[in-house]
């Protein structure tokens, strides 16, 4: 039987250490919505999304209330639109029309974001891929909840440099197209390498072609929880440090697993994966940089940072794998400068240089087989 200390511990994680389930993301396959007529294609897309994800938001809120742990976002990821719209879109404007349809569907079902306005061009670009990429600036400027991503490389194929070059222009155009709103368009655009098919986190989420017709993926976070746990064992040996990270990752992942299974059962949609990523938010105490400092660094970026991050990623993954057989997505640590107060402080203190950040992101990438280093590309264009 559960004892009072375990209950207090869980509630403390939520109330003081910012534990939350970051997102329930429903992946929806739209390949069967493809049509040679644009209007008919849009109509099918709208209908499929609003039917399948009709109860997503209410179910998320219900589960959140019953377990007393916030579920911050409810989202939808869809098949890369360059595949779905390939047969009916002849100009970038045609793709923008699909983007508007998606935005309308997103608002109808009340989700925070929809990801999958994407193209996978890691080896080469088809005509449709290029049209979609060229439509990104306008699509992100005229919609609110649509996220876009472009996968420009993979370990197997290398990097598609033509796509990289094109994306350089597109990022700039996107920034200009939304200049009145702090260039918000760029916050909804990601350039990835090795993008996983089942990532629930925005803006890089899309529903890969190797997935089910519909699935539920859950993203859990909790840098604050790991930070507090490490604080309580300050001065202990590396063995204790690693053990503590593993135990904490285990508990966080279990929360995600439960939420995913419940959501899957209630919505009648199969459960896909749990993505345990230590993803910071600007809130105080919700920082990955703080964890690195707690491990023993003076600042994020100081000598030893790469080793500390490698250790953190490794242990988080080991704890996560023990907790769930379905760990996927990007699973690792996410280290964006602009969303992490500890990282911002490190930059202001002069401790974190662009070169160091690059080394850190490579560390994350190799660990996760993922494109989390895109945060870096993004930051560089930002600043």
């Amino acid at each position, binding site marked *: *039987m*559960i*004892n*009072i*200390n*375990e*209950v*207090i*511990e*869980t*509630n403390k994680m939520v109330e003081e250490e910012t534990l939350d389930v970051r997102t329930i993301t429903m992946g929806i396959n739209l390949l069967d919505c493809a049509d040679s007529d644009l209007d008919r294609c849009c109509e099918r897309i709208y209908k499929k999304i609003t039917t399948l994800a009709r109860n997503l938001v209410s179910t998320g809120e*219900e589960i959140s*209330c*019953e*377990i*007393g*742990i916030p579920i911050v976002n409810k989202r939808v990821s869809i098949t890369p639109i360059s595949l779905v719209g390939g047969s009916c879109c002849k100009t970038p404007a045609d793709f923008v029309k699909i983007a508007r349809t998606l935005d309308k569907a997103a608002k109808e079902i009340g989700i925070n974001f929809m990801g999958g306005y994407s193209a996978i061009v890691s080896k080469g670009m088809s005509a449709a891929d290029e049209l979609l990429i060229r439509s990104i600036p306008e699509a992100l400027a005229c919609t609110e909840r649509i996220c876009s991503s472009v996968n420009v490389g993979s370990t197997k194929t290398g990097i598609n440099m033509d796509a990289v070059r094109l994306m350089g222009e597109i990022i700039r155009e996107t920034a200009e197209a939304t200049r009145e709103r702090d260039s918000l368009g760029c916050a909804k655009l990601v350039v990835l390498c090795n993008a996983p098919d089942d990532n629930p986190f925005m803006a890089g989420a899309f529903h890969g072609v190797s997935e089910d017709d519909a699935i539920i993926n859950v993203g859990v976070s909790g840098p604050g929880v790991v930070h507090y746990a490490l604080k309580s064992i300050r001065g202990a040996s590396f063995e204790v440090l690693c053990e503590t990270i593993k135990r904490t990752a285990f*508990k966080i992942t*279990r*929360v995600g*697993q*439960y939420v995913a299974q419940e959501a899957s059962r209630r919505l009648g949609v199969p459960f896909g994966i749990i993505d345990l990523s230590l993803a910071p938010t600007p809130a105080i105490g919700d920082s990955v940089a703080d964890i690195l400092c707690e491990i023993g660094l003076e600042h994020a970026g100081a000598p030893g940072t790469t080793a500390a991050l490698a250790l953190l990623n490794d242990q988080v993954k080991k704890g996560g794998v023990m907790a769930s057989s379905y760990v996927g997505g990007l699973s690792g640590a996410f280290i964006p400068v602009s969303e992490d107060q500890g990282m911002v402080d490190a930059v202001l203190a002069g401790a974190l240089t662009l070169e160091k950040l690059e080394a850190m992101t490579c560390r994350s990438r190799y660990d996760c087989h993922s494109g989390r280093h895109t945060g870096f590309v993004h930051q560089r264009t930002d600043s």
Partner: protein
Amino acid sequence: MEKTIITVVGKDTTGIIAHVCTYLADNEINILDISQTIVQGYFNMMMIADFAHIQKPFTQIASELNEVGERLGVQVKCQREEIFEKMHRI
């Protein structure tokens, strides 16, 4: 059986348990176990209750219990037991 954990946290006053239990009895919620402790000067009580016979939706009971707590100046939460099982048991 639908086990639910009800926690009450706040400054200790007379009648906390009485008020909460009255509400539970009125809603056909059977209490299986009660334990309490003082953490950093705050009163912490945990009840394991059976929600199998409730007539209202879970969310409504949760918010009504929260109101009972507000009147007493304490925080009352109710959460499904499964979440704790998942987190703390292998």
